């Protein structure tokens, strides 16, 4: 294969000493030793563009990059310090922040709806909601978690969470070659999930959803799972009567890489947005399977400084320009990484007065009269 479509499609390929095609060539030549000493090995942000466009359907993102990184780690190459810290935190505490697992439920403090903490009182539920690390701990994302709790309750869904027992599902660590860490998380989570009775798992995090859908079954851990966008879109008839408060705004939607390009799920998020009265949905010039990555996937979330140093740009800064070009008032997202990434990018662009970043959950909750109005 010499077409090079992977390299020309890669949003950071031009900045890599060893872009995807060259890595394949080095592997052919049995000279990967050179690659693993290059910063390039840590620069893939797991956007899946190369995998989707490869005419031979080589899944570079899920196979080639993790394999090269695994080789690097096994050879004793040290990952960049911030990634190392994220790995260690996942290993020790089950979350990338290094926070106490006992604080996983802090987001729900003083919440007016009932939160079923299955770790304290196991009972059968319809939905096991995996809140995820960012919505559990990150203040901006905690708003989204509370809005989600209110929406699920309003819809009459019998839902529960794992409280202090919840741990990251992994995925970014797998993409970054830490297969052992991923396996450990899979084994722990499988034992944890098997203790409870539920009909399906609903997740906020597209990366975790992707891991649960595709990679957990390889370890004998098969659980029915949905990303929240498809789960809520399937209940749109039930949601519609609640959507009474108009949100009079031009809204553009950023397709996250895992739900979008990787799982080819483009319509449910848009259906949710278009159901909100007053919303005018406009598209960015790169949308759906061609959407530009925010740069946070595959561990890129913890490598901003490294990738900016070696790549010369933050992809979220580039992407926010696409959103501004549409004239939208709101950039809607459906991934916990993206709220903080794009809110930072809006500040870099000095466009705080023109563009707000909101999770789809927040917009739905506002229209349903349940929201906290985050992101102001």
């Amino acid at each position, binding site marked *: 294969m010499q077409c090079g479509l992977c390299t020309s499609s890669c949003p950071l390929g031009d900045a890599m000493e060893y872009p995807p095609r060259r890595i394949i060539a080095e592997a052919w030549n049995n000279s990967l030793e050179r690659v693993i000493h290059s910063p390039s090995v840590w620069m893939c942000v797991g956007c899946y563009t190369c995998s989707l466009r490869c005419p031979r359907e080589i899944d570079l993102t899920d196979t080639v990059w993790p394999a090269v990184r*695994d080789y690097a*780690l*096994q050879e*004793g190459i*040290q*990952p960049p*310090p911030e990634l*190392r810290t994220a*790995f*260690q935190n996942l*290993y*020790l*505490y089950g979350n990338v922040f*290094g*926070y*106490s697992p*006992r604080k996983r439920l802090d987001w729900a403090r003083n919440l007016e709806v009932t939160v079923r903490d299955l770790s304290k009182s196991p009972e059968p539920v319809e939905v096991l909601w995996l809140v995820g690390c960012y919505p559990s701990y990150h203040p901006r994302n905690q708003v989204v978690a509370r809005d989600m709790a209110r929406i699920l309750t309003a819809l009459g869904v019998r839902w529960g969470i794992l409280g202090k027992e919840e741990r990251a599902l992994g995925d970014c660590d797998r993409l970054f*070659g*830490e*297969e*052992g*860490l991923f*396996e*450990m998380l899979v084994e722990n989570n499988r034992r944890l999930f098997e203790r409870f009775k539920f009909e399906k798992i609903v997740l906020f995090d597209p990366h975790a959803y992707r891991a649960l859908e595709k990679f957990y079954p390889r370890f004998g851990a098969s659980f029915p799972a949905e990303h929240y966008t498809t789960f809520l879109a399937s209940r749109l008839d039930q949601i519609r009567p609640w959507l009474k408060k108009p949100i009079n705004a031009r809204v553009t939607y950023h397709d996250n890489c895992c739900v979008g390009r990787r799982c080819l799920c483009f319509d449910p998020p848009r259906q949710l947005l278009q159901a909100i009265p007053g919303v005018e949905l406009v598209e960015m010039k790169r949308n759906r399977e061609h959407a530009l990555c925010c740069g946070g996937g595959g561990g890129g979330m913890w490598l901003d400084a490294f990738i900016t140093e070696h790549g010369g740009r933050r992809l979220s800064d580039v992407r926010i320009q696409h959103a501004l070009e549409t004239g939208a008032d709101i950039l809607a997202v459906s991934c916990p990484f993206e709220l903080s990434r794009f809110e930072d990018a809006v500040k870099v662009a000095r466009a705080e007065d023109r563009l707000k970043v909101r999770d789809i959950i927040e917009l739905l909750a506002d229209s349903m009269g349940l929201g906290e109005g985050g992101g102001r």
Partner: protein
Amino acid sequence: MNILAVVRLVPDLVEPLVVTAEEDNLNWDQTAFTLNESDDHAVEEAILLKEKYGGHVSVVAFDFGDIDQVLYMLAAKGVDRVIKISWSHDEPPNSLEVARTLSRLVPKLNVDLVVIGCQSHTEFLGMAGPQLAVALNWPYVGVVRGVQEGGTAGRWTAFKEYPGAVLAQMEVSLPAVLGILTASQPPRYVPVSRIRAAAQSVRFETADTPAEIEEPPVKIQRVYLPPAVTHAEMLTGSEAEVAQRLVDILLARGVLK
């Protein structure tokens, strides 16, 4: 060179510390533990010395808390021998207990150099290293951030940090005890697959249970959270109200006139 690294668990500060109802100690049942940071550096420095000059690295730890996972990780990093000292008490050993126990063990191990973290957040004075050196009648250099061969008359060179960013180069004859502040490079990351492999293959050696704990010469009278004597004032209200309140404060303090 045969190096022995001492590792200890300390309360993990990601969890809030809980004091007993009697206010006589931390509530150990509600305390999570983690590897003492400067002990982690001591092990790294030991492995770096082995990689540079050859030899063996042994690690010794008290069998307390979840020490096994820590020892597997250190074995995966390159430690050759792991020794666990039995310990059946609710709380981790204090510095005197560490020193007294190791002073009986070290002479049996044919060790040239003992490295230990120069302090921990449970022991700011960093007494374990000096107490051990005194008990062994070996020289001690503390607050070390690098070691290398090449002193005069077969001695080794330790780089010691003083306050005010002053660095001293000290010669020390072996055997010796070194209190490590930081290793010459950050402790290495080792993939979890290696740790899991170590958990399958590493065999711990065990050391004798130390003699009955001697009554420490200094006893804790009371452990408590310091009472708040002052607090920050959070300014609330609209932007105009907050701005006016700020102006009032600055005027009252004489910053604005």
